[in-house]
């Protein structure tokens, strides 16, 4: 029980003091889980981003569930994951009760007219950073450009095509290229 409370509290601390979510949390998770508590080895910590990236959902939740489960099984996973959620849940819930009225204020509305512009830039920046981490191979570049153009068309013409369909298509291209490549290699070997 003591360890469950400890998991909850440590992840509540991480959840309460990291802004921006996702990858912004990794350094804090490393400090707590590797340096202070020795819940993870350095190798496990190094493997965590790849694991979080290839499983669905928020990166922070992936990490909390993984560490909690390693320490204390399913109860540990629940404790760590709830710890991660509770601080922001409380803050956003309280905000939600008065945010709409707050936004109607002339000064706040003015500020947010500017902030909306910053958000557009931040999203573009997030995408640019994702692109810069990718290998510069022909399939990667073509698929990235194709996804951008398709999504742009979907947005501009308000087409009813889900981003999920686009993602599945993107993954299918990679799998198909791999299977074709393997078949060719197989053909040469025979």
């Amino acid at each position, binding site marked *: 029980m003591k360890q469950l409370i400890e998991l909850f509290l440590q992840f509540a601390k991480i959840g309460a003091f990291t802004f921006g979510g996702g990858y912004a949390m990794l350094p804090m998770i490393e400090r707590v889980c590797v340096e202070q508590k020795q819940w993870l080895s350095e190798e496990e910590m190094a493997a965590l981003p790849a694991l979080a990236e290839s*499983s669905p959902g928020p990166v922070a939740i992936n990490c909390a569930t993984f560490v909690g489960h390693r320490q204390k099984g399913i109860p540990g996973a629940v404790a760590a994951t709830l710890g991660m959620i509770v601080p922001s849940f409380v803050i956003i819930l309280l905000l939600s009760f008065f945010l709409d009225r707050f936004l109607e204020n002339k000064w706040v509305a003015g500020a947010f007219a500017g902030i909306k512009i910053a958000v557009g830039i*931040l999203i573009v920046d997030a995408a640019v950073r994702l692109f810069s981490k990718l290998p510069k191979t022909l399939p990667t570049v073509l698929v990235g450009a194709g*996804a951008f153009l398709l999504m742009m068309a979907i947005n501009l013409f308000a087409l009813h095509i889900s981003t999920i369909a686009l993602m599945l298509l993107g993954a299918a291209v990679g799998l198909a290229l791999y299977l074709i490549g393997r078949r060719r290699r197989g053909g040469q070997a025979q």
Partner: protein
Amino acid sequence: MKILRLFLAFLKVGAFTFGGGYAAVPLIRETVLANGWLDDARLSELIAVSESTPGPIMVNLATYIGSVQAGVPGAIAATLAVVLPAFVVILLLTKALKKALTSEGFRAAFGTLRPTIAGIILATGVFLALNNVIGSVQAPVIDWKALLLTALLAAVYFASRKFTKRGMSPILLILLSGAAGIALYAV
């Protein structure tokens, strides 16, 4: 059955978002527009609020939309739904996932899924930026103040990324843009 609709909608968001932060924005945008829960302007405001409050952006947006649509039960339903896929996959599939990470087919699929996600996010960001400047695509009217501010903020932000080691933090950009917004629109 608003709560069930919230739960299912955010379950889908949680299940089909890979990577954290802004990777969730395109699917959340699609979901809230389809359900009439938010428009683009309010979504952008909420993304800024999420960026400036602690916690994962996806979870923050789920809590907020759930609360506004169906009170505290809605907030709980949406928040649990958005984290449930992550929780279940890590719990049940960590071993399978680790093995899959070494499989060539899985890596090949992710090799093209990543640029697909990056392209989707880029198009969403560009479209939101465009919307800020021309209002709507159907009836475009250029907002010169917004155009000026977009050019200025983008120049400052990307220059800071290029010429300083860590660049400007997102929070600083939000504060700066808020001050500029007050000066341009409220004064």
